[in-house]
């Protein structure tokens, strides 16, 4: 059964800020909520469902998580969902909001993401993670110095060994993102880069260079998802969820294979529900924490065969107007924005812009009526949640 037509993405907003020294975390949540409500043509009083992840009030901050933020915004709700799935949470929230609306639990759902890691001086990428110290697996991992970069690097290293993937091919993913980011005035990195630039950037964790890594930014974004009855009262293009899938992957009791992600399960479910194939997709928002994340995800979703990702992404095949599969036309996490180290929100927002025809004219995909969004939350070689959406403009 498809949820197509059961709910519509009526409002999206990406905060233009990239460093939020002068703003509080709750303030950022409220600002993005206001932006998305204005985009939809609704007000706070219309919101009766709220969706957020576990970091909503900040990992270190005082307060009671979602309730602190709901209190700040003065929301009066009849539905609340606080699903945590790290960077893919906001992709999952679209699924959950649509399902809640279809079940009659709410009619105007607000999803928010906000964070200020730069303002807090976070050294996110290269420091060893200290979250989850009491988790069962922590004692078997943290002594070895895993961080987000060297973990993903082990996926890249193995993929290269197993399939002959090269650093040049990975670099093409960053090159494509930079071609798109040059047109985004809010992008953190707007300079077009070459394969040679990526390879000449400092090695962080073999084989990932600095330019294989996403940016760290403050800010956030918000979505408004509404019932068909509400959508009919708004003057917005009708963007609906046609199919979705969600699957976690973990260390499988030590039966570890770091060359694939949970997208091998979430993708087929989404395509089956939507009744379409990868060849039908006009635009793809692919979570791009690192270049390798994109390459493995594209294989797992079936845009090319396993092991063929390197050949698929090279020579500009992901550049809008040039290649077969335009991706991350806002510049993605690699160049534009990765607010609070969680990129799922901006992936949904750019897909909606494309489906509305509201992307920058230089990167707008012609007749873009079917788009895919994929989020990867967590660490690819250990534990992560994979979420796939197929969105359609009716």
């Amino acid at each position, binding site marked *: 059964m498809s949820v197509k037509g059961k709910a519509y993405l009526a409002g999206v907003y990406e905060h233009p800020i990239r460093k939020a020294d002068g703003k509080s975390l709750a303030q950022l949540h409220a600002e993005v909520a206001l932006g998305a409500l204005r985009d939809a043509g609704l007000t706070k009083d219309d919101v009766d469902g709220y969706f957020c992840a576990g970091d909503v009030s900040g990992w270190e901050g005082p307060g009671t998580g979602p309730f602190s933020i709901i209190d700040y915004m003065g929301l009066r709700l009849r539905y609340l969902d606080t699903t945590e799935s790290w960077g893919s949470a906001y992709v999952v929230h679209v699924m959950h909001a649509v399902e809640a609306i279809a079940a009659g639990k709410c009619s105007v759902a607000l999803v928010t993401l906000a964070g200020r890691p730069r303002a807090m001086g976070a050294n996110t990428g290269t420091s060893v993670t200290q979250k989850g*110290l009491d988790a069962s697996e*922590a004692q078997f991992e943290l002594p070895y110095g*895993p961080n987000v970069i060297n973990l993903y690097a*082990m996926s890249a290293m193995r993929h290269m060994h197993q399939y002959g993937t090269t650093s040049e091919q990975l670099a093409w993913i960053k090159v494509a993102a930079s071609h798109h980011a040059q047109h985004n005035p809010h992008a953190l990195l707007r300079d077009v880069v070459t394969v040679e630039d990526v390879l000449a950037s400092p090695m962080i964790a073999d084989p990932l260079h600095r330019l294989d890594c996403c940016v760290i930014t403050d800010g956030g974004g918000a979505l408004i998802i509404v019932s068909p009855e509400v959508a009919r009262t708004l003057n917005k293009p009708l963007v609906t969820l046609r199919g979705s899938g969600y699957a976690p992957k973990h260390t499988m009791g*030590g039966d*570890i294979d770091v060359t694939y992600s949970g997208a091998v399960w979430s993708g087929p479910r989404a395509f089956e529900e939507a009744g379409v194939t990868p060849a039908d997709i006009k635009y793809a928002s692919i979570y791009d924490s690192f270049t390798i994340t994109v390459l493995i995800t594209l294989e797992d979703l079936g845009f090319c065969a396993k092991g063929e990702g390197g050949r698929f992404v090279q020579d500009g095949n992901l550049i809008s107007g040039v290649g077969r599969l335009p991706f991350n036309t806002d510049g993605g996490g690699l160049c534009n924005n990765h607010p609070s180290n969680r990129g799922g929100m901006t992936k949904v927002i750019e897909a909606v812009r494309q489906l509305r025809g509201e992307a920058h004219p230089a990167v707008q995909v012609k007749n873009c009526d079917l788009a895919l969004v994929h989020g990867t939350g967590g660490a690819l070689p250990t534990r992560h949640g994979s979420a796939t959406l197929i969105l359609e403009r009716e």
Partner: protein
Amino acid sequence: MTDAVRAIPGPKPDPETQAYWDAANAGRLLVRSCNGCGRTHHYPRSICPFCFSEDTQWNEASGEGTIYSFSVMRRANPPYALAFVTLAEGPTMMTNIVDCDLDALRIGQKVRVTFQQTDTGYRTPVFTPL
């Protein structure tokens, strides 16, 4: 190479894993095996993650393995090699490769367990090329 030494955050054993860390301090690598399905898993659990049998037990591993993947953290001082090593007994575990030329590491390389002191007093299993 540099003279800097990487501070190693030590494990915090729990009742389920105390025997593993006590053995490591005695220079032995333990793995957890299941009498229900016959498979060995990692990290060790009381209940088998494959068949959910409660009939699991400790076995001493041979200490031999193969590098499945690795990455040298170049931005650290000193650089260090994070790795996944596939044990002769089957499961693949996260670890470090130590006492080696970091530039000469390769996937498929044979390695043997050794033990490294941490800041909680426990020694943790790491590997070195044969």
